[in-house]
C-alpha cells in the first residue's frame, strides 16, 4: 500500500478518532450526575443582649468635704450586639418619665466590633439617647458604667428603672 496523506487519513487517523470517541463515551457512561438548586439568603438582622442581670445602685455614704452623698457606681454589666446592617446605632432609654434621682450611663468601649461610644448620658426622661454610633456590619461589645447621684435635699428613697437598649438606623 502506498503511504500518502489520503491513505494515512483513511486507514489510521479516522479509525483512531472513532476509537477515541467511543472510549470517551464509555467513560462517561460510567458516571451519573444530578443537580440541586440551593439558595442562601441572608436578611438583615440585629441582635442585642446583656451579660449581667438586675443590679442595685446603693448610695450610702457622704462626701464630707462636699456635704453631699457620694455617687454609687456599677460597671459590671456588659452589652453585646451583632448587626449585619449598615449605619446602625445603639440607643438607651429608661421607662421613668421624671426620675427623682439622677441615673447616668456610659458605654466603655473596650471590646471588639466597630462603633463609637458617646459621652455619658443622663437618663432624665423616658426618651431614647444615643449610646453608641457607627455600628456597621459587626459584632461588638462594651461595658456599661452606671452612676447614680442623689443630693441631700432629695432625701431617701428608691427608684426602679427599666432600661431598654435598641439598635436602630443611625
Amino acid at each position, binding site marked *: 500500500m502506498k503511504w500518502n496523506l489520503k491513505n494515512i487519513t483513511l486507514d489510521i487517523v479516522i479509525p483512531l478518532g472513532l476509537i477515541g470517541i467511543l472510549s470517551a463515551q464509555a467513560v462517561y457512561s460510567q458516571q451519573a450526575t444530578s443537580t440541586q438548586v*440551593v439558595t442562601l439568603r441572608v436578611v438583615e438582622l440585629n441582635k442585642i443582649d446583656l451579660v449581667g442581670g438586675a443590679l442595685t445602685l446603693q448610695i450610702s455614704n457622704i462626701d464630707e468635704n462636699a456635704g453631699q452623698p457620694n455617687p454609687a457606681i456599677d460597671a459590671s454589666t456588659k452589652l453585646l450586639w451583632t448587626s449585619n446592617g449598615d449605619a446602625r446605632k445603639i440607643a438607651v432609654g429608661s421607662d421613668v418619665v421624671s426620675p427623682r434621682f439622677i441615673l447616668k450611663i456610659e458605654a466603655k468601649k473596650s471590646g471588639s466590633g466597630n462603633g463609637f461610644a458617646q459621652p455619658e448620658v443622663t437618663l432624665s426622661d423616658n426618651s431614647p439617647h444615643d449610646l453608641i454610633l457607627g455600628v456597621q456590619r459587626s459584632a461588638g461589645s462594651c461595658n456599661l458604667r452606671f452612676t447614680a447621684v442623689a443630693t441631700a435635699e432629695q432625701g431617701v428613697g428608691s427608684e426602679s428603672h427599666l432600661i431598654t437598649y435598641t439598635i436602630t438606623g443611625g
Partner: protein
Amino acid sequence: MGPLNFLALSSTLYSRSTLGRSTTWRKKFVLIAFFIFLFGLLSNFGYSQVYGTTTNKITVKVQTITIVQITGSIVNLTVSGTNAIAGQDQMIATDQSSTLLWGTNSSLKKVTVKTNLAAPKYTLQLVAVSPTVGTAASQVTLSTAASDLVTNIGRSSGSCGLLYTAIALASQGIGTDAHTITFTVSTQ
C-alpha cells in the same frame, strides 16, 4: 400404521400364502415378521417422544449502570435573626430536607459534589448524613472543585441525608447566593 396392526396383517397374509405350507419358509417368515414388527415398534416409540428440535443462543449483557437522584430539588436557606447570637460575628442556618439516592453496579465508586458558584459571598457546607452504604466524608465547604461526599459505594443502591450549613458573618452584610449543586457518581 402401528406395529400391532402390521403384525396382524402379516399373520393374515401368512395364513393365506403358499409359504405357510413350508416349515423352513414358515420360520423365515416369522423371523422377518418379528424384525419388521420390532422396527415398527421402535420407530413409533421414537416419533412419539421427539417431534422437532432447535436451539437458540441467548446472551445476557449487563453494562455499567450508574444513577443518582435527589429528592427535594430546591433548598432555601435563610440566615435570619433567629440564627444569630448577640456578640457573635458568625451566623448559621441549616437545612436537612433533601435526600440523595444512588445506584451503581460497578465497584470502586464514590459520590462527589460541587457548586457552580465560583465566588460565593457566604460559606456553604455540606455533609452526608447516615449513608446506607459507603462512608460519609467529613463536612465539605462547597466550591467549583469536586469534593468527596460519600466514598466506597461500589455495587450498591443507597441513600443519605444532605445536611447543608450556611455560614454568614455580620461583616458580610445582607445578600443572596444562588448555587446549583451537582452530585456525581464517579470512579473512586
